[in-house]
């Protein structure tokens, strides 16, 4: 994985000292809260429902064992012993003191991590495919491109006070595991005549006006990528709406201009910007790429796995994914124990995962947008030992992509923007389906819950989505069907009137029962929904 050189280290170190100074000036009264707010946000520090919350960037979701251990250390030393992995491959701490924040950033910098631009109206953490570099279906490794963009976007002087936040994802497979087209800019690396380049999508997003990003450029080479993305951002910075924060994302600009006009303006700006020497030389991408070269895989490893233990065999079938290298596997650690809090991990669990990465996965972990953890380089021969240790620590849940593997935002239990709690709904649904045993029968079903319209829980992109709303002071939950954040990207449709907390659990069971009854061979819930349409599901719910 990428390692900082002296330049990178100096940048994050300077940032820590800058923020230390800003906090000092805030506490001394030289900065008002209004002046300080965007500064702390650009260092990941929010004021949440109960306390300050710190969001730490995990660039493109990749972590070393040492970095993961530091995340555990921070949870223990500065927080209440746990952290929450988010849908943007970051980690959040819920109970941070403002006075500790500079020290936390310094601890992070000591392991080449930071919280830079994890909030604010700027370019956020670049997200990517959690199987980057180990998936068999890649055109190229997306991580060097993501790192190039990370450096370019960090402390960008022109684009730090954008109309609104700006999220970029980079993938390189036809199978989209990063919800790429639901980003402000989505980049898919493709190969054309043997050359790798970027297919660019712009104007996707969720929130209150969800949109699937249209393609704006079919191919940009590495030689022109930065100038092209700068052009996309400049058009947005100049013309994105600033009169209404709910209409300020780039998706609204692209929608209002029309994709052709937005594309035309970008191309015009690009023609100019591409002459300014903004693009790093090829040597720079090549330099970064050396850090992502394949590890020294052992050859001659066996592909045999002893499946005698039925619990292990189940985990193997559900949580372990094919690796591009013979003898190796990709192991998913579910952070969705039945009845648990989706995405939460204790300091001890985080440290254990760090240990396991060092011992079994060539010192590397990935965070997924579905709030799980991946060990990307596990020898098949080690899987059983790995699983036993995971299982003992409550990390062995065999439910990847099942109805119990729920994405949920923190909701009203933690978030000051939320209208309803998300986590208790996730817990009740997971428990219901684990208890009645239908989870296994249903198979792949992506269920996503947001506690408000901002859609941090990706409810628009769930095969089944749930949106918590405030109905006259009580929590109410709307049901959506038919969304997908994958390569078959689509937005869910609201079924009709909402439900209370128990009612929404029943509703999910009703629509899945209909699916079990109506499905044809090999159909997932989503496929059946797409074939049948909304009407029979509505009938099952309200008829």
């Amino acid at each position, binding site marked *: 994985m990428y390692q900082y050189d002296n330049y990178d280290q100096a940048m994050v170190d300077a940032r820590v000292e800058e923020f230390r100074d800003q906090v000092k000036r805030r506490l001394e009264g030289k900065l008002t809260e209004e002046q300080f707010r965007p500064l702390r946000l650009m260092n990941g520090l929010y004021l949440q429902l109960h306390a300050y919350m710190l969001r730490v960037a995990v660039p493109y979701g990749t972590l070393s064992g040492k970095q993961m251990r530091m995340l555990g250390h921070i949870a223990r030393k500065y927080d209440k012993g746990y952290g929450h992995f988010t849908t943007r491959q970051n980690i959040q701490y819920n109970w941070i003191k403002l006075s500790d924040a500079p020290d936390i950033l310094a601890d992070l910098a000591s392991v080449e991590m930071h919280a830079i631009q994890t909030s604010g109206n700027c370019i956020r953490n670049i997200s990517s495919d959690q199987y980057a570099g180990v998936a068999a279906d890649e055109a190229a490794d997306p991580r060097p491109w993501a790192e190039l963009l990370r450096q370019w976007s960090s402390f960008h002087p022109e684009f730090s006070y954008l109309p609104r936040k700006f999220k970029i994802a980079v993938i390189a497979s036809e199978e989209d595991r990063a919800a790429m087209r639901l980003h402000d800019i989505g980049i898919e690396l493709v190969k054309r005549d043997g050359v790798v380049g970027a297919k660019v999508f712009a104007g996707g997003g969720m929130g209150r006006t969800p949109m699937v990003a249209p393609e704006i450029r079919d191919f940009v080479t590495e030689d022109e990528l930065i100038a092209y993305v700068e052009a996309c951002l400049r058009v947005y910075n100049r013309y994105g709406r600033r009169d209404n924060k709910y209409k300020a994302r780039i998706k609204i600009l692209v929608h209002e201009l029309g994709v052709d006009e937005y594309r035309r303006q970008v191309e015009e700006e690009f023609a100019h910007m591409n002459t300014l020497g903004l693009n790093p030389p090829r040597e720079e991408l090549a330099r970064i790429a050396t850090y992502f070269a394949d590890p020294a895989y052992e050859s001659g490893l066996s592909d045999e796995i002893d499946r005698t233990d039925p619990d292990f065999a189940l985990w193997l079938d559900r949580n372990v994914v094919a690796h591009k290298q013979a003898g190796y596997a990709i192991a998913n650690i579910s952070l969705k124990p039945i009845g648990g809090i989706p995405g939460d991990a204790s300091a001890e669990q985080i440290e254990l995962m760090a240990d396991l990465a060092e011992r079994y996965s060539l010192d590397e972990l990935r965070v997924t947008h579905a709030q799980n953890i991946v060990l990307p380089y596990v020898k098949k021969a080690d899987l059983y030992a790995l699983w036993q240790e995971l299982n003992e620590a409550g990390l062995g849940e065999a439910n990847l992509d099942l109805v119990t593997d729920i994405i949920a935002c923190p909701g009203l239990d933690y978030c*000051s923007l939320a209208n309803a709690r998300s986590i208790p709904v996730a817990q009740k649904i997971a428990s219901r389906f684990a208890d009645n045993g239908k989870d296994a029968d249903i198979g792949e079903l992506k269920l996503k819950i947001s506690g408000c319209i901002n859609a941090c829980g990706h409810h628009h992109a769930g095969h089944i989505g749930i949106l918590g709303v405030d109905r006259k002071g009580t929590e109410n939950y709307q049901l959506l069907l038919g969304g997908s954040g994958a390569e078959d990207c689509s937005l869910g449709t609201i079924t009709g009137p909402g439900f209370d907390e128990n009612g929404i659990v029943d509703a999910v069971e009703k629509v899945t029962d209909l699916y079990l009854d109506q499905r044809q061979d090999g159909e997932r819930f989503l496929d059946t929904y797409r074939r049948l349409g909304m009407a029979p599901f509505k009938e099952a719910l309200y008829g």
Partner: protein
Amino acid sequence: MKILTANDLTTGDVVWWAGDGWSRLLIEAIDVADKGEEIGQREEIARRIIGAYVIDGEMTDDGPRPAHIKDRIRGLGPTVRPDLTSKPEAGDLAKWVI
């Protein structure tokens, strides 16, 4: 009753106006009547707190009870982590906040 709440500037802790200063316990919140905004502004300028706002509530046998679920959760802590709330032994917390 009118309750004044905010977060401690330095620690971020949820605090409630208790008459002679801020308390971390909702049960100590007093009725600020129409003085909430003024106290909140004064305290923000004094750099003790941020994000002050006034809420409606009622006095119950159990102490002050905010009118809105969001503030009840603020007063209690996350309902999904009873161990981190102000009523770790109280049993079904969801019932209290709803």
